[in-house]
């Protein structure tokens, strides 16, 4: 992002109404354009409200970190540079670069890092916090030639790494990856000496924008993609299985096709972290089944569902896969080696990200693997993530079950168990993940920060319900969260979400029943607001309420008990 664009984004963001999303930027240097870029990169993710970045005092990094707690910020970013650890490692203050000055340099860095780290630990438990460790190259403080890694230099780097590991182990603190920064900007091009000496701001504009964008992503992580649809020939394996034969397709070093094995390994990793993997191939289905059953295939066949193999257009396969997954096209990446197929799918589904697998260019294919890990990346993998692929298969089995004669008989035969927990764990990421990523069964589309969830769920007088589901087709894990406040005979529901994988089982009726039964209220009032995607919950609520779709929707207990269909749930643990 250019500085000009950043300033324009901020100007437009300042016109928004609503309570600003406030971030405290703690740095020891003059934050200048880093502050500008951070506000600009936050403007998109914070939605309809303004983004505000507050900074502390020049030259007082530890003090600025301490000020975070009383700042009222929703999140914070801490940017450390070498000059914060010892003046000899910076340019604006003199501390001496001679031999004598090195005797205590390591000890000085150790002491300052301990102070800064302790300050971060103190505040890191109370709000989301992103940290950037020193990213500039060393000033010429070491006496040796530059290619020589002196013991002093190595000890300082070791201290930096130790501090970073200590911080990264904290739940609420996220560290900016040096590997990531190195791929975007080599160390020698990150600083601006003129700017540092003239203004106290040490970064080049490009580096400031990169750091700010990364910090914004750490503070408000972009949602990971949910599904990957892949071609097979010259993508999952080298060769055309229909032309070359089952035994001739390859993915190994000897056949110079190992990049395909790396791709399969990447797909496995994505699936293990909860990503959905499907195949769309123009091939004979029986041959494809044999290929996917090959004993030496790296890709775990159990991770792939569904497999669409036919001679029709790829867009037809994509449509069927999206239906089976019940997710939006914008949450999916399609990978194919054929630009024509990519264009065909892109024309039918403009929201899908289409990526070319260039098998003849390992460098390009490898960059694709890096991009896929980034697009599907998540900092925490929950138990529900490992269940996701299996639950999609289970949902398909549920919908196409031939075992029973009617939908009602099917529901009755499920051996379904519902577990409702009222215990809120502030360190558990699953409730916030459900609230901030669910669209279709979402009461009002409102997204919450960690702090907002804690205040809505973790205080006396508040109701927190977290619902888990399992049936004979398998477990779905935790699939719904409801937040409410008791007000006499009324339960006022501010948040209610349910995973789309749990549809068609009447779980929503069971949740309302639980709410009425455990609170004893006679009315449930819901802060419903229509969004572009929450038709499923709108239709459900309309069947129980006489309101005209305007908040608050009221459901009388008598109306609910009269209107509700039968449910067939056993109670889990």
């Amino acid at each position, binding site marked *: 992002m*250019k*500085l*000009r664009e950043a*300033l*324009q984004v901020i*100007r437009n963001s300042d016109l928004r109404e609503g309570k600003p999303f406030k971030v405290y930027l703690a740095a020891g240097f003059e934050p*200048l*354009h880093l502050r*500008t870029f951070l506000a600009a990169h936050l403007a998109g993710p914070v939605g309809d409200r303004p983004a505000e970045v507050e900074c502390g005092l020049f030259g007082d990094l530890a003090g600025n970190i301490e000020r975070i707690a009383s700042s009222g910020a929703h999140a914070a970013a801490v940017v450390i540079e070498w000059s914060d650890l010892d003046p000899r490692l910076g340019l604006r203050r003199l501390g001496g670069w001679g031999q004598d000055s090195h005797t205590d340099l390591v000890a000085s860095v150790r002491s300052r890092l301990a102070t800064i780290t302790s300050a971060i630990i103190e505040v890191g438990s109370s709000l989301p916090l992103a940290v950037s460790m020193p990213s500039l190259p060393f000033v010429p403080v070491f006496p040796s030639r530059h290619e020589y890694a002196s013991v002093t230099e190595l000890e300082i780097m070791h201290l930096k790494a130790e501090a970073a590991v200590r911080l990264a182990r904290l739940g609420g603190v996220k560290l900016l990856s040096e590997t990531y920064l190195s791929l975007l900007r080599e160390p020698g091009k990150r600083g601006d000496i*003129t*700017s540092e*000496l*003239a*203004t106290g*701001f040490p970064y080049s*504009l490009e580096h400031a924008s990169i750091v700010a964008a990364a910090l914004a992503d750490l503070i408000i992580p972009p949602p990971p993609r949910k599904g990957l649809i892949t071609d097979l020939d010259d993508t999952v394996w080298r060769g055309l299985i229909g032309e070359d034969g089952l035994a001739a397709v390859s993915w190994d070093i000897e056949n110079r096709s190992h990049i395909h094995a790396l791709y399969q390994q990447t797909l496995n990793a994505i699936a293990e972290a909860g990503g959905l993997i499907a195949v769309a191939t123009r091939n004979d289905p029986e041959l494809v089944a044999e290929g996917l059953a090959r004993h030496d295939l790296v890709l775990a066949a159990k991770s792939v569902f569904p497999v669409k193999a036919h001679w029709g257009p790829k867009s037809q396969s994509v449509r069927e896969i999206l239906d089976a997954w019940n997710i939006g096209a914008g949450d999916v990446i399609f990978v194919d080696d054929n630009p024509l197929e990519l264009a065909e799918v892109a024309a039918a589904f403009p929201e899908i990200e289409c990526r070319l697998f260039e098998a003849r260019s390992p460098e390009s294919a490898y960059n694709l693997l890096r991009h896929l890990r980034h697009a599907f990346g998540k900092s925490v993998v929950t138990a529900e993530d490992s269940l996701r692929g299996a639950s999609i298969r289970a949902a398909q089995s549920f919908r196409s079950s031939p075992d029973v004669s009617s939908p009602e008989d099917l529901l009755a035969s499920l051996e379904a168990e519902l577990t409702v927990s009222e215990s809120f764990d502030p360190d558990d990421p699953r409730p916030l993940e459900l609230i901030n990523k669910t669209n279709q069964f979402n009461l009002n589309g409102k997204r919450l920060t960690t702090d907002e969830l804690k205040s809505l769920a973790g205080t006396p007088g508040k109701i927190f319900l977290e619902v888990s589901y399992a049936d004979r087709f398998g477990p779905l894990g935790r699939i719904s969260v409801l937040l409410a406040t008791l007000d006499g005979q009324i339960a006022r529901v501010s948040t209610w979400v349910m995973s789309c994988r749990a549809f068609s089982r009447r779980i929503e009726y069971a949740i309302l029943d639980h709410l009425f039964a455990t609170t004893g209220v006679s009315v449930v009032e819901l802060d419903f607001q229509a969004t572009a995607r929450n038709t499923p919950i709108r239709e459900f609520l309309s069947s129980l309420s006489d309101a005209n779709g305007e908040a608050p929707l009221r459901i009388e207990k008598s109306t609910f008990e009269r209107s509700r269909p039968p449910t067939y749930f056993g109670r889990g643990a």
Partner: protein
Amino acid sequence: MIGRSLEDRLTDCVAIVFPELSRDEIPRAGGASLANWDSLAMVTLVSLVEEEFDVHFSIDEYQLAASYALLLDHLKSTNRDV
């Protein structure tokens, strides 16, 4: 940018930092006439001009951001017109 004068491009830069000024007011604007044309605004202006014209200001040249006129003279002297 082909087709746009140096004056127009410099005016755009100043307008981003001082959106309250009309384009007619900008050529006469500077620290002497505007209270908020302060050191922070000058630094931001220097960075915008560096970005727009692909130039680099020396530490002594930062003071040229004290007014539109000084900046324009500097850019003309470094032959940044297109």
